[in-house]
Structures are given as C-alpha cells and as structure tokens.
C-alpha cells in the first residue's frame, strides 16, 4: 500500500510556475516496450540499463538515476513519454528504442528537445537518411549483417549456388534483401526465389512449400523476432534441414535459442549482434557482472542496453559535463572497450563500428552448459561508407 501511495502519478500534481530545476542528478531514460508484443526485450533492456547505472553510481560527482518508460511499442507513446521525461526531470540521456519505428520517432523528438538518444534498433535510416546530431546507434545495420553472414557462408560452402529468401515486406526487410542480392550478383549465386510476407504473418508453410519447390541449397531467413522463430520451426518441421542449409541473418541471440531449443537450432546458421560467448575483455566483464547480479547470462537486449548506457556515461565523464552539446563532440570519434572488442563511434553518422557474428547451432550433446547453444564461426566489421548511407549530419 505504501508503495502505491508513493507511486502517485508523477504527471498529476499542481503545476508550479517555476520549471523544475536541473537538480544535482544526471537523469537517464529507458524508453522500451514493457507491455505488448516486445515486452521480453523491454524487460531485459531495463535490466541492462540498471546494471550500468548501478555500476557507476555517480558521474562527475552527481548521482545517476534512470526512469523506465513503457513505450507499448507505439511510436506516438514513445515520443510523448520521452518529451515528458525531458520536461519533468530534465532527462537528457535516453537509451532504448527496440523497434525501428519507435526509435526513428524518438530520434527526432530527442533532437527537438536537445537530448541524446542511443538505440539498438536496426533500420538503416537511423544512421542514414534520418540521422541527426542527437542520435547514436550501437547495432550493426542491414549491410553489415548480410556481409558478415552471407559472405562467409558462401565462402564456406562454394558449391551452394541456389539460395531462396524469405523476407518481411517492409523497409528493413528490403534493406536486408537488397544487400543480399548485391552479394548474390557478385558471387554468381542463383537467387531462385523470394517470398515476401507481412509483419503479422505466422503461417509460413505456404512460403516454405514454395521454397522447397525451388530446390534451394540455402534458405536465407531475413525476418526477425518471433517471425524468424516461426519460420525456422516450420522449416525444420518440413524436413528442410535434411537437404538445405538454413541461415537466419538477423537472429536475436540467447533469448531466441531458449525459446526454440537446441534440437531445432542444431546445424542452423545464425547472424547475431551479440553473443555472451564473445571473447573480449569488455564482454567478459559484462558476463561476470550479470551473473553476479542476476544469476544468468546476458542476452542481446540486456547487453545492448548496458553498453549503450555505458557509452553515454563514459562520454559524460570524459567531457567533464552533462550538457549534451559538450558531450556530442566527445562521442563523435570516441574509441572504447566495447562488448565485441574495440569499438568506436563514427563521427559522420554516429554509428558504432562493431563486430557482427556468424554463429552455428550446436547439438544438445555438445553443449557445455545450458546456454551454450552455438559456436562463433566468424565475425568482423562491415559498414557502408558514410557517403552511401545517405546521412548528412
């Protein structure tokens, strides 16, 4: 009961004529979906920011604090709550935006409100056509995701000449597809067919039947989240693993493996932004911290949120000020020990240059512990040159 009383609406109070003073706390915001279809991602993103904030505790002598904002996976709600947090608590640092649509909207709003926003969302436009001074991105967009999965797989399997793609029909899906088609052309791969599907699709049997009729060597899944899980599960049920190699270019990592199970994932190739098995000092540190605090391994949502928050905190400390205008120049070009090794923020488009990984699912018998679902086959940094991203900062 006491907590309920204490949780009286922050929005509901007598509006004072004086604006709330900046105070002595550095306020962060974590705008992520906590209810609705992406609640799982939001839950871990919250924990990631919590971990970083508690790790530092203070920056420049001022205590660090953050507020969780439930965007409900709706861009309009995300925009409103971001703006409200800026106004009510003078929050200037936001790390979140799981979905591209909400991330894009928040990027605009952050700029309007002189706040900084860093995200793990995938849409190319975030550090491309819609880039702005306030927005930074940690994840690898479509070009790199395809370069670091399709290309190594082609090199590993030179005889696999027939590829079939399943693509979600929207800008992001097209981004992945076009990047893949470019490599196909370059390497003389026969693109035997593509099935577009809507974002609401659950039933992939029709598309898979189509794919099987084209007799591909490789089935390339360009969808993500629950759709990629459904597509993979159904592809395996159709026996496609027997004579086709399956590559899921944009996998979610640990949480997806957990929901699919080792048997399904065995022998399947996955592209990942992050894996808790990465051998880098930054990641080893995170894994240890997460194990200590939460007793489980970090997944992508948690890791992404953690490193994004950490990047901002480190920049604030380095800049000697929490004024966004002074922090932006520090962020641009900043090199740091990231989760995938040494990472740096490209100044021209605010994209973090980091590795993208090609994983292969292991047999259940080969798993050393309950999270050891996959081995890292290869990794690397591939990014479009700034001139081609369409970003003009």
């Amino acid at each position, binding site marked *: 009961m006491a907590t309920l009383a204490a949780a009286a*609406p922050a929005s509901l*109070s007598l509006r004072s004529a004086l604006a709330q003073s900046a105070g002595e706390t550095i306020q962060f915001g974590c705008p992520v979906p*906590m209810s609705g279809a992406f609640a799982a991602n*939001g839950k871990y993103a919250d924990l990631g920011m919590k971990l970083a904030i508690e790790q530092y505790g203070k920056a420049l002598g001022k205590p660090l604090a953050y507020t969780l904002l439930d965007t409900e996976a709706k861009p*309009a709600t995300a925009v409103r709550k971001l703006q409200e947090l800026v106004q009510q608590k003078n929050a200037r640092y936001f790390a979140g935006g799981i979905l*591209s649509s909400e991330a894009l*909207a928040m990027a*605009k*709003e952050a700029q309007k409100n002189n706040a900084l926003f860093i995200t793990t969302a995938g849409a190319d436009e975030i550090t491309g056509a819609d880039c702005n001074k306030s927005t930074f991105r940690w994840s690898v967009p479509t070009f790199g995701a395809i370069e670091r999965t399709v290309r190594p797989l082609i090199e590993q399997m030179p005889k696999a000449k027939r590829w079939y793609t399943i693509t979600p029909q929207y800008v992001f899906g097209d981004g992945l597809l076009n990047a893949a088609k470019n490599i196909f052309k370059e390497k003389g791969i026969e693109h035997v067919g593509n099935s577009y599907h809507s974002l609401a699709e659950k039933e992939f049997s029709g598309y898979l039947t189509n794919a099987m009729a084209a007799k591909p060597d490789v089935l390339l899944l360009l969808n993500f989240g629950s759709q990629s899980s459904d597509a993979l599960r159904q592809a395996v049920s159709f026996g496609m693993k027997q004579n086709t190699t399956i590559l899921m270019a944009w996998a979610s990592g640990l949480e997806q493996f957990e929901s699919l199970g080792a048997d399904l994932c065995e022998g399947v190739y996955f592209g990942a932004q992050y894996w808790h098995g990465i051998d880098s000092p930054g990641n080893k540190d995170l894994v240890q911290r997460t194990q200590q605090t939460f007793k489980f391994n970090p997944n992508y949502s948690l890791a992404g949120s953690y490193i994004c928050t950490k990047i901002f905190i480190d920049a604030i400390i380095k800049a000697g000020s929490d004024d966004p205008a002074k922090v932006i120049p520090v962020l641009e070009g900043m090199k740091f020990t990231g989760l995938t090794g040494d990472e740096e923020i490209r100044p021209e488009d605010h994209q973090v240059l980091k590795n993208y990984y090609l994983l292969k699912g292991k047999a259940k018998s080969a798993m050393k512990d309950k999270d050891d679902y996959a081995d890292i086959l290869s990794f690397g940094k591939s990014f479009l040159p700034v001139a081609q991203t369409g970003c003009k900062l």
Partner: protein
Amino acid sequence: MNASRRAYPLANLFANPGWWLALAVVLILPLTLNSGTLATEVLVYALAVLGCNLLLGYTGLLSFGQGIFFGMGSYTLGILMTRAGLGLPLSVLLALVAGALTAALVGWFAIRQRGTYFVMLTLAFAQMFYFLAYSLPDWTGGDNGLLNIPRPPLSLFGMTLMPLDSPWRFYTLVAVCFLVVFWLLQRVTASVFGRTLLAIRENETRASAVGYDTRRFKLAAFALSGAVTGLAGAFHALMTGIAPLSNIEYHTSEMILVMTVIGGTGNLFASVLGAAFYVLMSDWLSTLWPRWLLLLGLLLIGVSLFMHKGLWGLLQRGWTALRRGRAAAAAPEGAPEGER
C-alpha cells in the same frame, strides 16, 4: 419556452450542462497535469471518442473502424505538410475532409448490413486499411510511418497568430477547437437530424416506416463521425510530429471503442470522461507495473459488470444521491405537521 430557446441560442448552453462541463475539463487539465502533451492527448482522444459515440450512442452503430479515420487524418495531414508544404490550418481542414470522405466510403459499404454483420464489416475494413497503409510505404512511410511533421506557428490569412512550439501553447489551440467541435456536435445532436439518429437507434424499421431514408442518415452520421475522428488524427500527428502506422491499426479502433463504452453512451460529455479516464489511467498505471494491462483488463470487466451507463452514469448516480441526501436532510424541518 421553445420559442425563447430558438430566439436566444445562448439559453441552450445554460440548460444543457455538457459544454460547460467540457469547458471545466479543459480548464482543469492544465491545473492538475504537468505534461501539456498528456493533456493534449486527452482532448485528442476525446474528439475521437465523440466521433465514435456519434455512431454508437446516437445512431446505434457499433463501429470497429474508427482507427481508419483517425489514421487517415494523421496521414493526410502528414502528407500535406511534409510533401505539399501546405500550411497548418489548411492541412487540418483537409485532414478533416479526408476523414469524412473515408468514413462515407466505409459507411456506404458497412451500412448495407446490420447488427453483428455490420460490426464484422467494420472490423474487416479496419484490417484492410491497415494492410493498405502498410503496403504503400511511398505514401505512408509503411512501418516507419511519416516523420518530421512540423508544427509551425498558427497563421491565418498571412497573419501569424501564435506560436505552437511549446506543449501548452499547442494545447490551447486543440482546446479551442475541441470546445468549438463539442458545441457544434451538441447543436447537431439536439437538432432534428440528431433526434432522427436516435430514432434510428431505437427502432430502425419504425423510423424507416415513418418515411425516413435511414441509409442517408446513417451515412451522414458516418461522415460526421469520420470528420471529427479525422480531425483528432490530424491533431495527434501535429502533437507527436509523426503519423505512425499504429494510428490506423486495429488496436486503435478497439481502444477508442473501449473509451466510448467506459465513458457512457448517453451523452456527449460522457465521451470526454471516457477518454480522460482511459488516457490518464493508462499513463499512470504504466508507470506502476509492466503488467498494467492486467489492471486495465480488470477495470474493463468491472465497468461492464457494474457501470453499464459508464462513468457518466456513475457521476449521475452520485449527483442524484447527493441531492437526495440534501433533500432528506432539509425535509424534517420543512415538512408541516399535517403532511404526515
């Protein structure tokens, strides 16, 4: 009495408290809320709920398609302001027209059926428009939505009237428009047209037998509802600077309908209550618990079990109980010996 009402339309306002209550809400929101954007969102959805109530409460049409018109309003304003470079007042007006036209189109098909079939038709159309919006990214931005919708200062006929940059300044604009629309809707619902709609709601066969072209009236109700909802969508796009796909999603239609029923379908002010309650409650609950939808679900169950006249009915009951209490307290002194 009626003659004087017609001669002095202002007298109507005093007789019917709805508009005054709406004004009260418009004035109370800035005093009790910290966030101008939240207050604006209350009024935006109040407009949308008024549109839905016009169909549900006044014409007896349960429409699952309000999200279509809301989204069309947002998209129209977004496209006109970012592509055609049109000014704010003109874009808002055209968004309103777009909402009306879309509603007329949907209505023309939907009113061919009645009852549950009508409901299902609006649901099917809602899904179709969603897929249309999703599949035409060149127009709607697809899943990303339309971005960078500006909010220039309000200017009419070349004169700059007021800047709209701060949330509370924009709220003022929305509040004024809201009160005007509310007043207009009051006139409409009190008019012959409005009473005909009520007659259609009560018994469509009888209304038709008496000689009314019920289809034309239902279509007009749709167009009016679409106009108001399109206006709401336009303001929403201006408020957030974006026209997202979620505005035209099925969930928006469902949400607007839920707000309408919660508020009560008896009168126009009930719609304001429903919108205010839902928007403020959701905002507050979402800060308490990630599983706040559970609380919302329980609330909906509670409302449908115990408050079938909605919040307005609750308010009415409270008001009546209060007056009865006061009368009972006054009676013992006033009642003469003989009356017993």
